């Protein structure tokens, strides 16, 4: 059973999230955790002019989405949209949310890593009844999703800290 494609996807997922392991081959410029590192607690709920989403909203959204996609795409523990996830107490600070984010990432990563290349095109029903996507779609979307919101987080942080350069 070939696993070349799965391994590439897992590496890209690691890089997008930056799992803190020594052999991670990205330096994490664009990763979610790298971009959260320079966020101060006072930036957590800061909003730019005409903005609606805080860094807390975006980070929570990333973690929640990884758990939902892991369930629908890769048989991880059941998780649906609309559930209070993470609980409000965990969302309160970056310090509290970060371990939950790591747990969300590990849930997705560990389930994806169990599959082989032949299974990446298996159709899976999403949360929309009758909407089927290949397993591959669930992980490629999550890789892009983490990077995309890391970019948004970086921009809000730069505006909050007045160092958009």
């Amino acid at each position, binding site marked *: 059973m070939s696993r070349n*494609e799965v391994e*590439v996807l897992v590496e890209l997922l690691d890089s997008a999230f930056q799992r803190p392991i020594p052999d991670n081959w990205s330096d994490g410029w664009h990763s979610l955790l790298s971009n959260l590192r320079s966020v101060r607690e006072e930036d957590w709920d800061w909003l730019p002019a005409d*903005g*609606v*989403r805080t860094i807390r909203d975006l980070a929570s959204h990333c973690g929640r*989405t990884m758990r939902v996609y892991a369930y629908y795409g890769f048989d991880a523990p059941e998780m649906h949209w609309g559930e209070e996830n993470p609980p409000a107490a965990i969302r309160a600070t970056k310090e509290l949310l970060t371990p939950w984010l790591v747990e969300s990432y590990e849930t997705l990563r560990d389930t994806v890593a169990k599959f082989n290349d032949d299974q990446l095109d298996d159709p899976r029903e999403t949360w929309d009844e009758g909407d089927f996507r290949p397993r591959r779609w669930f992980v*490629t979307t999550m890789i892009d*999703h983490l990077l995309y919101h890391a*970019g948004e987080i970086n921009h809000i942080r730069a*505006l909050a800290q007045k160092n958009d350069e």
Partner: protein
Amino acid sequence: MTRAGVDQLLYMLDRAFAPIDDDVEHSLLHNLEAVTEDDFLRAAPNGNRTIVQITWHAAAAKLMYANHCFGDGTLTWDELFNHWEGKPSKTEMIDWLREAHAEFRGLIEPLDDGALTVERKAPWGAMHETRWIVAQIIEHDVYHAGEINLIRALLQDTDSRPTFDE
């Protein structure tokens, strides 16, 4: 020699740059679609980096990585930042982005999986595996697409949460 890993990276590279099928949300070109010509030249309120500067940087990075990792390594950032006299329109910039993407992609397309762990020299002189270099360009496009989306949403007063979430 297998190409499954290369093909997966090419797929990710292409979808980071432009919409593939109905996967449109996070790509660089998709996030430029809703940017007006006026907004293209603007930064977020109280911000410094304009959308044109970020887009310029995304195109220039593809050309720098192509030249330094796969070519003679003589191209400079200054040459690329002097590519335009004045500020390009969004249409002109997208054309340049497409050229830059095609140049970088064309260097990855002939590789096989064995080449992905071959080390190449990055624009700053350090040696990195080829797969790392390709991953940087994938990440770079999507990361800056996110930044562009945020700036556009703030300028157009349309920042909002996903409807299925929260």
